[in-house]
């Protein structure tokens, strides 16, 4: 049986700043908690195709699974956790603004 679709967000890096962005509606937002969680696979695939076409704004668009339990969007892989916060050796990246 194919694996069931997990709730996901669309993410990429911003073309100009290079930092991590997430899709919310038709906007790119910079905080994972502001991202739009997609739960329908067909919708998610369509949104991914549309988002990937926005090459003047972002680079490397992809879907990544999240865990939207308890009102917080949690990443499900440590790579995405680093992307959402920043490196562990300095308080740089997203965590700078928290």
């Amino acid at each position, binding site marked *: 049986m194919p694996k069931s679709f997990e709730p996901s967000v669309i993410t990429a*890096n911003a*073309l*100009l*700043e*290079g*930092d*991590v962005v997430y899709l919310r509606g038709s906007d790119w937002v910079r905080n994972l908690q502001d991202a739009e969680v997609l739960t329908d696979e067909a919708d998610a695939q369509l949104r991914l195709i549309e988002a990937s076409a926005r*090459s*003047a704004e972002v*680079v*490397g668009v992809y879907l990544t699974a999240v865990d939207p339990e308890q009102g917080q969007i949690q990443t*499900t*892989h*440590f*790579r995405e956790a*680093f*992307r959402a916060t*920043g*490196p*562990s*050796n*300095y308080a*740089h*990246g*997203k965590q700078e603004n928290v």
Partner: protein
Amino acid sequence: MYAYSDFDSQFIAQRNAQFRSQVERRIDGSLTEDEFKPLRLMNGLYLQLHAYMLRVAIPYGTLNSHQMQKLADIADKWDKGYGHFTTRQNIQYNWPELRDVPDMLDALAEVDMHAIQTSGNTIRNVTADHFAGAAADEIADPRPIAELIRQWSTDHPEFQFLPRKFKVAVSGASHDRAVLKAHDIGLQIVEQDGARGYRVIVGGGLGRTPMIGKVLYDFVASEDLLPTLEAIVSVYNLLGRRDNKYKARIKITVHENGIEDIRARVDARYKLIRPQFTGVDQQMLSRIEADFALPEFVTKSLATYETAYTNDPVFRAWADTNLSDHRAAGYAIVSISLKAHGATPGDATSHQMRVMAELAAEFGHNELRISHEQNVILPHVHRADLPALHARLKEAGLGTANIGLISDIIACPGMDYCALATARSIPIAQEIATRFDDLKLEHDVGPLKIKISGCINACGHHHVGHIGILGLDRAGVENYQITLGGDGTEDASIGERAGPGFSADEIIPAIERLVMAYLDLRSERAETFLQTYRRLGLAPFKAALYPQAKADAA
């Protein structure tokens, strides 16, 4: 040091102008990312996890004070006030924005620097022994030939689309400090019957399939070197596999075809192209050699040095670990550790860069080097000046006395920055260094090289670490494999995998068990970790790493 000719300056200016216009066209939508990516990579610009990363070449690891000052200025103006020195003698800026990169490249050009061919399937920055021109054990300074190779390989029309990247390292000493046997081509200056030439090693490399380089020629005369290199890369360009990225490096080409077959092909190609090398390269080389003339060494009293060495235990500990023998009487080679316990290996703040630049200007004939071990070298310092130098280094957090010891760890950026990484490297290095500093054991343990890579590509050289650590992703969790007995010197060997990996929580205690086992096992204090390992093999170390397996078997 080599100074750019008008040709060099014009070439760099032209390339920078081209890149500026490419960036503009990417931003205005005329270029797609697929079109732009190869162009930015040719100019050293990557897109990493959190930001763009600009990798700047430091040819053969040599800088002057002025250049180091500029690197500090760039870190302040366009980055977050620091830079990361890499295992290929480059510096990486982790936080530039796309619009600023053309200005950064122009700033680099002001001090004869660039980021060309620090990425892509081309001949990369040529690295060299970081003690070049200063080491007591050197036949000749390898930097002139490294500079000639830089000029030959930069924008070489035949070699812009090789099957895969291509790395060259050179050394002028029999003790290999440049990891020659882990490069696509390693060149060692040798003498035969009074004539100077090169031993040519090919097909070394780390990464997914680590290989120790093989000797292609024991002796190539100086004037025949460039055509020989051209013949080798030319043979590889046609023969190297383009069907499989993981089999595309020359190490696989040499392995699959055999060194004799490669030699026959290179010989044939060489015969064909040799007449094209009419001696212009040798004229250029002699001009370059003049640029690398040694500084005028002076004679001074050693009294200040001797007094400090006798009376100041902190200075003495630093002098014992961080100084190496210099070719000139009264001088020393100073290794400045960028591995303060708990700090990120290879990182220097802009303030630290400026301090090192000032100290090089004041005490070190204006010269600095970057080592592949991610430290900074002042190659020519008179011993009389060492106490003053050491005091200033300490003030800037640069006085750590740990060169060659367990906390002098090579670590790639790992998953804290790198888009290719499968696990973090930096925190593991930080924790090992902090742990052994707390134990106050590192001087007792003695020479021990730990090298950490955050993925199979092995930028952290883990295969040639006495203790190598490879970070992997095992079912969504960071997992660290240990290899033992690797060596990157003239006795190069690839480390042996010790067994199953460890979690991030388990890896530091595992390293501690390993080192404690060594202290028990060594025959005498002078026997190093690597010597003990070579004498006893894997078994006793494996028993220390996996006590549970031993208990289960009992």
